[in-house]
């Protein structure tokens, strides 16, 4: 068609020819080695650029989506990251954080060489050192600790696992330590507990794409595990007619896209879910046959209702009685959500049958005392509908992922670290990581070598001032090495800051339960791969980085091999043998040999697929970066298995629980001193509305919501993401704003049990009255102008210790333009960096799951004349008191058999069974 008005044509436009056929999303894989396209900036001049397209895996959130790096063949710079179209989870598509990887790689602020502190810890004086010095010092300290029997004094504390669990399990078991500490208890411990008590596996894997009803206590259309893969499939289902309900006190983007938004009082979600369960039971909408076959209802009747015959009809009656109090009206009184809505959603769930996909991971489970019962109540709906591992249902995680075995797995150590899993928390999921400063303060031990890795406890954990006190006490933490690509608040308090690679600068093997399938993804150091394609060879990845102009950035896999080798150079400690090549006897393992071995031996179908293309398995993974091991994984529990649980007369795989069935009734909880919690129930939260005096300004603070653009403290180096989101004002309802006499932008003072923070108000209809919310993604800070924090995202602050335990932080200035190699750094147009609310939270460990219960009872008032935006005041003595109060809620080990923890219960890096005995 001709345009309505004749228009002047640019000379280039006249040369245009119409492309043949349609447009493609990606260059064909056959041409990835050498792909030509036009320089986007020179356009419409046609300047050709040639790229090698090398797949890798995103390193931002945990979804492990595929990326395709475009490495410029002339400059050896990465031009861009696109999605990897052959990745089964992400299918070539990404969220904003995928392309923002380019910012992280090119960040002018990143650390390129290892640093050692020269002054006092935290004083901010650093010098560049060699990797040899670093490795020798750390290896020497670890070797000494191992030789002297101080295995418990070596601890590795990580935020984001790379190569899932097996790689490091191999390292630490080889060392014979119990030293793996994680971020799990500030994240997902309660959800894990809720799921694990049901089916022994600690995560859900919803098959959203095939669901008829999707019930989310999560915000998977914007964040979370596994945001992009799940969001794709949720919307697919919605477009096909599935209904979506979201239970969230705050209107997330996800809730906004849902057919039903239920905004309850925080912590009352289990009451809603149990009311829904009651509807399903009383109206007999549930899948009786499934429940009868796969739930340990008989054990429940025998243990709890000896008055009833052991028949399923009796169980049905028992259920009606057990949940009789959870009427929709009761749930409405508890939660504020209309009874009619609860019934409507319950019936819609009933109509969905086995195609009920649900998810909770953090959200209310991570916020509330007893949050693990919310997860359990949610899974109860899945079980009632027989939607376990069905098409459109919700499977346990482990069946939808695959963890290839490495060569030579060392046996677990016979050590149990009380600093990780103290006897007060025998059922915790898992390590009581965020209590470490309090444990050390109580004299429970010390650390000879402490690693933090992509983990920022000073900032991320509650009560960060106690972390600063711990980290600056060299008697408690003798040596601290921070493995990180960027500065962080925690790195500032390290002895070594060791630059490790980003998404495109390291090897990792990933597998996530993104849908009803099993796949692996291969993270690769793309510059090394690109250089090796051109005939260069390197012993270690950092050498390739140095050759490409990227300083001395290591990859961790090689770091652990090198460190282990130096801990046991002659093999006398029995460690070295696990780090020898499976192909060259007695020689040090090369990283590509590890992956080569796994791809050749541990990934079913991969060697055949590679052979079909004339490639070795390693070459296949280097080329495609992902492999689909099995698609359409359903009803795994029904698979026949010798010594399994007999159902329908056949021994079947069942579930990894003591009964091998789904445990409506948990004998474990009963035996481990929590008989009142043995079945799915409702625990009133520590911030239940009945605890609030609203007239005095008391409110519930929801401090745990993510933004679609950021990822905790890992994205502070992404200018394109911070440009979009850089503040975390306090959400509150107009009713509360009117009561306080404030409007959007006015300063509010939010007081917790241990201090307060000052933030701006965001007055919104998207939050329940009486509740305030503040995203935990903002509020980064640094202590000096030019080092210690990414200037894209941090405010410069003054941090002063005003007494033995009293701390005050005040912002000197917010984000400002700065000079760097990147002209964009002078174009920063925003000032706010947000407010670091987590510093003002005491630790609140759930006595069962061990989850830090994030929600806070706060008093919200108008800020005073002396209060300034971003102010933080904290008293760590008070936080220690609160720790002791919550510790008093526990019912410590030993449990049956004198054990520290039930042997069947999952635990990361399980020690030898002998270590479970509490003697």
């Amino acid at each position, binding site marked *: 068609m001709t*345009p*309505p*008005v004749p*228009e*002047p*044509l*640019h000379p280039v*436009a006249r040369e*245009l020819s119409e*492309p*043949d056929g349609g*447009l*493609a*999303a*990606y260059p064909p894989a056959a041409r990835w080695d050498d792909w030509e*396209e*036009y320089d*986007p900036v020179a*356009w*419409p*001049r046609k300047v050709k650029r040639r790229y090698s397209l090398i797949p890798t895996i995103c390193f931002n959130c945990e979804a492990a989506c595929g990326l395709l790096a475009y490495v410029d063949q002339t400059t050896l710079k990465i031009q*861009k*990251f*696109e*999605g990897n179209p052959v990745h089964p989870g992400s299918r070539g*598509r*990404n*969220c*904003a954080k*995928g392309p923002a990887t380019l910012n992280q790689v090119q960040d002018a602020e990143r650390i390129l060489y290892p640093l050692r502190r020269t002054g006092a810890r935290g004083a901010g004086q650093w010098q560049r050192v060699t990797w040899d010095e670093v490795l020798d010092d750390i290896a020497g300290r670890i070797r000494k600790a191992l030789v002297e029997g101080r295995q418990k004094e070596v601890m590795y504390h990580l935020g984001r696992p790379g190569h899932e669990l097996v790689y490091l399990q191999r390292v630490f078991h080889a060392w014979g330590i119990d030293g793996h500490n994680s971020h799990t208890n500030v994240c997902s411990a309660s959800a894990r507990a809720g799921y694990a008590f049901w089916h022994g596996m600690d995560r859900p894997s919803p098959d959203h794409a095939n669901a008829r009803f999707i019930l989310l206590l999560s915000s998977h259309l*914007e964040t979370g595990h596994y945001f*992009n893969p799940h*969001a794709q499939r949720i919307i697919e289902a919605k*477009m096909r007619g599935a209904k979506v309900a979201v239970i969230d006190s705050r*209107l997330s*983007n996800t809730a*906004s*896209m849902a057919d039903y*938004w239920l*905004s309850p009082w925080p912590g009352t979600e289990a009451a809603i879910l149990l009311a829904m369960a009651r509807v399903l039971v009383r109206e007999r909408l549930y899948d009786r046959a499934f429940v009868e076959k796969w739930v340990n209802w008989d054990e429940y009747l025998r243990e709890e209702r000896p008055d009833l015959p052991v028949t399923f009809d009796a169980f049905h009656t028992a259920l009606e009685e057990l949940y009789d109090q959870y009427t929709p009206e009761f749930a409405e009184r508890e939660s504020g959500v209309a009874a009619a809505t609860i019934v409507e959603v319950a019936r819609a769930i009933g109509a969905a049958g086995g195609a009920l996909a649900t998810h909770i991971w953090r959200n209310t489970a991570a916020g509330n005392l007893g949050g693990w019962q919310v997860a359990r109540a949610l899974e109860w709906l899945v079980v009632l509908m027989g939607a376990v591992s069905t098409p459109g249902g919700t499977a346990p995680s482990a069946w939808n992922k695959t963890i290839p075995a490495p060569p030579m797995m060392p046996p677990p150590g016979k050590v149990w670290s009380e600093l990780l899993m103290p006897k007060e928390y025998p059922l915790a999921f898992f390590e009581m990581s965020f209590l470490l400063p309090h444990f050390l303060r109580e004299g429970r031990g010390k650390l000879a070598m402490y690693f933090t890795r992509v983990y920022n406890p000073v900032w991320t954990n509650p009560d960060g001032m106690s972390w600063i006190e711990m980290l600056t006490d060299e008697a408690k933490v003798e040596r601290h090495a921070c493995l990180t690509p960027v500065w962080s608040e925690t790195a500032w308090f390290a002895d070594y800051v060791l630059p490790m690679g980003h998404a495109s600068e390291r090897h990792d093997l990933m597998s996530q339960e993104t849908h009803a399938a099993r796949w692996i993804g291969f993270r690769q150091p793309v510059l090394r791969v690109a250089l090796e394609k051109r005939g260069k060879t390197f012993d270690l990845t950092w050498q390739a980085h140095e050759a490409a102009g990227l300083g001395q950035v290591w990859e961790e896999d090689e770091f652990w091999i090198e460190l282990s080798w130096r801990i046991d150079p002659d093999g006398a400690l029995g460690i070295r043998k696990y780090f020898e090549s499976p192909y060259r006897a007695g020689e040090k393992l090369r990283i590509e040999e590890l992956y080569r071995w796994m791809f050749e031996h541990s990934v079913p179908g991969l060697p055949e697929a590679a052979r079909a293309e004339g490639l070795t398995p390693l070459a296949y993974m280097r080329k495609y970066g992902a492999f689909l091991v099995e698609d359409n994984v359903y009803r795994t529990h029904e698979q026949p298995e010798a010594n399994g649980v007999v159902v329908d007369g056949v021994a079947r795989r069942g579930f990894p629980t003591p009964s091998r069935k789904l445990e409506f009734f948990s004998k474990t909880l009963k035996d481990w001193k929590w008989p009142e919690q043995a079945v799915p129930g409702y625990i009133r939260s520590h911030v239940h509305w009945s605890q609030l005096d609203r007239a005095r300004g008391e409110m519930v603070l929801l401090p745990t919501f993510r933004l*679609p*653009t950021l990822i905790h403290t890992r994205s502070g180096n992404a*200018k*394109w993401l911070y*440009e*979009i*989101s850089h*503040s*975390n004002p306090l*959400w509150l*309802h107009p009713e509360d704003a009117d009561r306080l006499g404030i409007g*959007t932008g006015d300063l509010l003072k939010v007081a917790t049990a241990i201090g307060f923070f000052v933030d701006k108000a965001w007055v*919104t209809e998207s939050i329940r*009255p009486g509740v305030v919310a503040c995203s935990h993604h903002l509020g980064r800070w640094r202590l000096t102008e030019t080092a210690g924090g990414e200037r894209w995202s941090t405010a410069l602050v003054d941090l002063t210790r005003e007494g033995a335990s009293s701390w005050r932080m005040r912002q000197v200035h917010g984000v400002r333009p700065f000079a760097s190699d990147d*002209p*964009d750094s002078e*174009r920063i*147009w*925003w000032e*706010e960096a947000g407010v670091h609310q987590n510093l003002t939270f005491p630790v609140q460990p759930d006595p069962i799951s061990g989850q830090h219960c994030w929600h806070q009872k706060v008093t919200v008032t108008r800020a005073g004349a002396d209060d300034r935006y971003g102010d933080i005041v904290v008293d760590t003595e008070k936080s220690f008191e609160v720790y002791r109060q919550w510790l008093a809620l526990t019912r410590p080990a030993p449990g049956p058999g004198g054990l520290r923890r039930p042997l069947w219960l999952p635990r990361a890096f399980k020690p030898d069974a002998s270590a479970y005995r509490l003697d």
Partner: protein
Amino acid sequence: MRYGFVIDHRRCIGCHACTVACKEENQVPLGAFRTWVKYVEKGAFPHTRRYFSVLRCNHCDNAPCVAICPTVALYRRPDGIVDFDGARCIGCKSCMQGCPYDALYIDPNTNTAAKCHYCAHRLEVGLEPACVIVCPERAIIAGDLDAPASPIARLVAREQVEMRKPEQGTRPKVFYVGADSSALTPSLQAPAPAYLWGQRSEGEVDLVRMAAAVQALEPAGDGALSRPVYDAPHAPRPWGWKVSAYLWTKSISAGALMMAALDRVMQLARGDALFDTAAAMVALIFLALTMGLLVWDLKRPDRFHFVLLKPQWRSWLVRGAFILLAYGVVAVLWLLLPAAHHRLLVVPALVLAAGAAGYSAFLFGQAEGRDFWQSPLLLPHLIVAALIGGAASLVLVGTLTGASDTAVLSMAGFLAVALILHGGLLFAELGVTHANTDVARAARLITRGAYRTRFWGVSVVVGVLLAFVAIVLVPGGMVIGALLALAGLWVYEDVWVRAGQSVPLS
């Protein structure tokens, strides 16, 4: 062949992946966006909802940015894509005024205009735009609208689609499925000084405060408006004081020779040097200032000659430049030729002076994004402004150079008449019913909003009433009257230029 986009807001989750992927692909600097996601909220708890809208260049079939661009830096390709060539751009920012959708920005690396260009460089190798391939939800569909079987054509045919501001007559090719109308229509949105996870830039906050003040005067309740809770930053008001000053100096320049020619026609002060030489000198001096301001306002002043050497003849920037040049030639001839021959120049002088004064009406008319500037009264108003500028400047020059009383008095007479006309046009422009909400808001900014003191105080009271009183009623008040009139005219031009750009485009 007509490439377009469908944005399917039944699928869009507002994740900003398109925004960032575009920045990555096209190396878009901080502070600028080729595509972005706006969020608005509606309703009261618990019946609240947030709506997303993906906004970008509409690749209009009738693209105002192409029409106004003086150098063919912006052009529509035969396949419907509106592409740009930074190498031809002079940075005049008129495309930013022409576009009703906020799609353009000035790239700080090159100081030239840029926007979404459909990833034309990717299309060339057979690949879809970067925003399309990154989208987790496949909510952005690219393709040929003219191919009936293409997914995009089928969607447009089958689903109810909406466009942004179809009333602008631009024929957009970005179609929205399942979008909320208020998310696409800025006039249906309440002013927002901050966003739920970000600040607004300082310049924007000032504008928002101004807009909020006049929106508060409107009869509609807040409940009718959606509440923007996130948007990307946009450069507020591309044209500033230099453009206001250009209008003012041009009024004086055009008016000066216009007065001389009128004098010759009307035979009022025949033979006075004021009209034979001084007027032409005023015209030339202020013409030079006008040209200087125009070049100075370019982001690439080094390329000012592109207007003459790479002209796009539909652009009134180009036509205006040639009118000004021709006008300059006539003014030079007026100066050089003996007064006796001036009668030969009367017609060209009158025509070109009117053209020099009035062509800006067509230039501002091409600024399709600014509804306030689309007034049919603009042309007469600019002519009247030239009368004021010419008469007032000649009153001053005449007094200074000792011109005859007749000459000065005749100019004072013209000035008095022009001030009456000016006052009448101000009333007609601002006081009557407006074409639409945006026009009404801009007018209200002037009459009742942030500019009301400057407008009523300086433009009306000082620049019209006091000036008129001084000229007509105060003996010897002509000089002060002329000064007041010029001051009032300057303030009015400035307020008019600013107010026209103060209503948000997106």
